[in-house]
């Protein structure tokens, strides 16, 4: 089973040998990291939050404190609200599908007598591939006229689909790419959870009259995978929520805003239109949602330790 985050809380700490050394050595060791932490994480986040209360635009000389004006504008901003909505719709497609597919693959492979290594290799391959490069491939694959996917559809006598040119399908097309690249990752996490399930339990279940493998799966495997399951769901949600690359290289938010997602809209606001104030307000919204996910994740990890 995976190591846990909260080990320290439950264990008695051994006396540290370092305790007898003078602490200035520890400060020397930690100083470069502390400086970088302040310069690249903590400081910028404080500045970013402060910026969100101003009307600052990159390149302009003036900067004015405008209070909650940026946030009030976000509430009326149709583009922003659409981006938020699209992001949640995207997460609602990617997270459940990639978790279920990962679980399905892990369980099926775990039951095999031969070829486990081969299948794991194949399904993990998309996880290692550069997202931008594979996005190009998918864009061509699903191309409205010359894409192999459409040529296959046509050869089967079906009408062709221009997925990334269709308002109703573009977001689902992007979600399919993410499911493809995330399922193998989840499969590995589930596989780690499955190795913790002892064989004897299955034999016992069989003696108890659980004949079908579906019964055994629902009554034995799934409950034992519970903690892993919660964890994979939260991790996949966070990953899906941070989608950026495929949107930036395939659809750029189009067609007609149907794939505008939070990070891409924020990117445009800040680095294309250089409206730093309102981009900062969007980032604060993004960061708040991330923090909520992280909080849930920490709770899940806690849960896992007690299990």
């Amino acid at each position, binding site marked *: 089973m995976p190591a846990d985050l909260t080990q320290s809380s439950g264990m008695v700490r051994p006396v540290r040998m370092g305790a007898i050394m003078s602490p200035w050595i520890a400060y020397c060791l930690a100083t470069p990291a502390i400086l970088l932490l302040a310069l690249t994480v903590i400081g910028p986040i404080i500045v970013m939050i402060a910026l969100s209360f101003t009307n600052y635009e990159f390149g302009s000389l003036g900067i004015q404190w405008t209070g909650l004006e940026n946030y009030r504008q976000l509430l009326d901003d149709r583009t922003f609200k659409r981006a938020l909505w699209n992001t949640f719709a995207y997460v609602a497609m990617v997270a459940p599908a990639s978790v279920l597919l990962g679980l399905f693959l892990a369980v*099926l492979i775990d039951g095999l007598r031969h070829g486990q290594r081969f299948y794991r290799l*194949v399904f993990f391959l998309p996880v290692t591939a550069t997202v931008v490069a594979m996005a*190009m491939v998918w864009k061509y694959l699903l191309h409205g006229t010359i894409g192999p996917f459409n040529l296959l559809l046509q050869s089967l006598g079906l009408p062709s689909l221009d997925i990334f040119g269709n308002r109703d399908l573009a977001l689902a097309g992007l979600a399919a790419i993410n499911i493809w690249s995330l399922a193998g990752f989840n499969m590995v996490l589930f596989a780690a959870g499955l190795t913790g399930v002892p064989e004897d339990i299955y034999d016992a279940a069989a003696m108890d009259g659980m004949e079908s493998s579906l019964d055994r799966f629902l009554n034995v495997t799934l409950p034992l995978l519970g903690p892993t399951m919660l*964890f994979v769901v939260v991790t996949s949600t966070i990953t899906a929520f941070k989608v950026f*690359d495929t949107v930036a290289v395939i659809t750029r938010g189009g067609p007609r805003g149907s794939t505008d997602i939070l990070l891409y809209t924020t990117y445009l606001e800040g680095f294309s239109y250089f409206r730093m104030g309102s981009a900062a307000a969007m980032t604060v919204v993004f*960061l708040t949602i991330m923090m909520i996910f992280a909080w849930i994740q920490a709770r899940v990890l806690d849960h896992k330790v007690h299990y």
Partner: protein
Amino acid sequence: MNTPYRCRPAQILSHVVLLFLAFLFLFPFYVMIVTSIRSPQELFVREFRWLPQQFTGLQYYIQAVTDIPALTFLKNGVIVSGGILFVQLLTAIPCAYALAKFQFRGRDLLFAVVLFSLTVPIQAPALPLFLGLSAIGAIDTYFAAMAPFFLSVFAIFLFRQTFRSYPDEIIQAARMDGMSEWAILWTIVVPGCLPSIAAFSVFSVVAHWNDLYWPMVVIRSTELMTPPLGLAVFADSESGANYGALMAMAAILTAPLMVGFLLAQRHFIRGITMTGVK
């Protein structure tokens, strides 16, 4: 070992289902390779063919490294992800060692800040980092592409866990011999914790090799572009017409990580899923 739930028909059915899914999962890779070696005319034939009708050789690959600076992008990928990893190890290892083996005022606070920072994605500090880098005139440099990632809180967190389990007796014996803490850390503790450092290295290199967001913010000139950014910009300028060259380029820029993965599968799987597992 002939338990009922592993009977033959079920095994065969599993293989059938898995082989079908494996085919679907590999199909994009197949399309990438086969398109990169097709002749230009064939790309626009409105019929899907499994194999190229005539072998055009590696013309697209040659085009990718001569007309388009694919090799420059590869070099930049190595410089940027290598530079990031080097500084990350140099700063995170001593800090993790201090957190794991020393007691000092503010240690718990520092660790709490590390745990908080674990959840902060690069997009959160991006605006001020951009403003800061442009204030010092560093936009469009390797430094700008690397600087935000010089500190990895994840590395600190991971190495702290590893160093904690390193036996204190060995450290104490080395101190008796009069070794400096710096020497103890780098010549004794670090060599003893190599598996965890290797796993982190894979994780870090894969993450930064593949990153599009930050290079897109700070890099402008072609000579400095990392593989994802170079590919994105190239695809744009070609307006999607030259799919052969595009696929060849995608294959070249994914190849280093793919080859690494095939050679060291276990390390890769461990390194990449580490964030999920820990």
